[in-house]
C-alpha cells in the first residue's frame, strides 16, 4: 500500500469516527432515548428518471446514500467505482440494496446529467436531485455537509462535501455512516450479514 493510500485510509478512518460521533450524539438526543438507530427524517427528491422519491421509497430494501456532484474530479468517481464493485460482490443479494448518489450541486446535476454519469458505473445506481431546499433538507436528515466554494481566478465553483456513505436498513432506520474503500471485502460480508440477519421481513 502506498503512502498516499495509507494517508487516505487514515483520513477516512478519522472522517468515519467524526461522523459516527455526530450520529451517536444525534441518537442520544432522540426523544425516545433508547433507540440507537433513529428513523430517517422525511425527505423528498427526484430520481434520474424524473420520478419522485421520498424516505419511504426504498423501504423493504437497504439504502446506501452518498452525497457528491458530477464535476467532482476524484473522490466521487472513486466512491461510485467502489459502490459498483460492492453491488457486483453482493451478487444476487444486491437486489436487497439500493445505492443512491445524491447531488449537492442541483443547479448543474439534473436527472438526465445524473443518469448519463451513473450509467458509467452501474445501471442499478440511483441518482437523486431536487430543489436547493430539498437538497438542504436531505443532507440535514443525514447530518451530511456541503458548501459551494468559488474557484480562485475562475468563473467557476466546486463543492465541499461529506464523503461518507450512509446506511439505512429495510425498515427506514439509520444504521451508520462509513467510508467505502478498496478494502471492501469485509464490508461486503458485513452488509450481507446485516441484510440477512436484521431484516427477516424482507425475505420473500
Amino acid at each position, binding site marked *: 500500500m502506498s503512502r498516499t*493510500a495509507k494517508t*487516505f485510509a487514515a483520513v477516512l478512518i478519522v*472522517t468515519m469516527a*467524526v461522523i459516527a460521533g*455526530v450520529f451517536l450524539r444525534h441518537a442520544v438526543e432522540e426523544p425516545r432515548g433508547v433507540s440507537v438507530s433513529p428513523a430517517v427524517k422525511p425527505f423528498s427528491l427526484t430520481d434520474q428518471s424524473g420520478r419522485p422519491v421520498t424516505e419511504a421509497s426504498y423501504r423493504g430494501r437497504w439504502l446506501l446514500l452518498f452525497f457528491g456532484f458530477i464535476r*467532482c474530479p476524484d473522490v466521487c*468517481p*472513486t466512491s461510485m467505482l467502489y459502490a459498483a464493485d460492492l453491488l457486483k460482490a453482493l451478487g444476487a443479494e444486491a437486489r436487497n440494496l439500493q445505492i443512491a448518489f445524491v447531488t449537492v450541486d442541483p443547479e448543474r446535476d439534473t436527472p438526465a446529467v445524473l443518469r448519463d*454519469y451513473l450509467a458509467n458505473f452501474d445501471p442499478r445506481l440511483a441518482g437523486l436531485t431536487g430543489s436547493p431546499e430539498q437538497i438542504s433538507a436531505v443532507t440535514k436528515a443525514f447530518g451530511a455537509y456541503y458548501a459551494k466554494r468559488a474557484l480562485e481566478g475562475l468563473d467557476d465553483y466546486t463543492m465541499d462535501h461529506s464523503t461518507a456513505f450512509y446506511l439505512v436498513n429495510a425498515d427506514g432506520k439509520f444504521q451508520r455512516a462509513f467510508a467505502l474503500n478498496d478494502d471492501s471485502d469485509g464490508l461486503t460480508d458485513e452488509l450481507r450479514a446485516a441484510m440477512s440477519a436484521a431484516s427477516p421481513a424482507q425475505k420473500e
Partner: protein
Amino acid sequence: MYRTVLAATCIILTGGAALAADAPAADARAAIVVTHAWVRASLGQSPTTAAYLRIENRGATEDRLLAVATPAAATAHLHESVAKDGIMRMQAVNSLGIKPGQSIELAPGGLHIMMMGLKSPLKVGQTIPVKVRFEGAGEIEVDAEVRGLDDAR
C-alpha cells in the same frame, strides 16, 4: 506561497536554456523521474476529471513540484482530498516537496491533478500531454494514458 510563485516565475523567465547550461540544474533535471501517468476518461457530461502519476527523486537534494498543466483542459491544479472537521474537501496544493529517494504517487482518493474545463471528452485509448514543473528539474512532460473506470482504481 508568494516566494514559490516568484521562484517559479524566475525559472520561467530565465528559460530552459539557462537551466540546461547550469550543471547543478542538469543534475536536478536527471534526478526527477515522472512515470505511470494516467487520466480518468470523461464521465457523462462532466467537463472535469483527474490525472495521476508517480514522481521519484533519484537525486541527492530535495526538489519541489510547483505547477501542472495540460493542453487538454482549461485549467489544471494539484489538489488533495483532505478531511477537516470530518468533511472531505479538495484543497489546492501549491507546492509539493519530494525528498531524495522519495517516491510520491498521485492516486484516486488522495493527491490528484484536477483538470477543469476539458476541451473535448477524454476517451479510453487516447493519450494527453501533462506538463509537471519542478523548482530544480524544470518542466517535465509526460504522456498520460486515458483509462476507463475498470482500470481507474
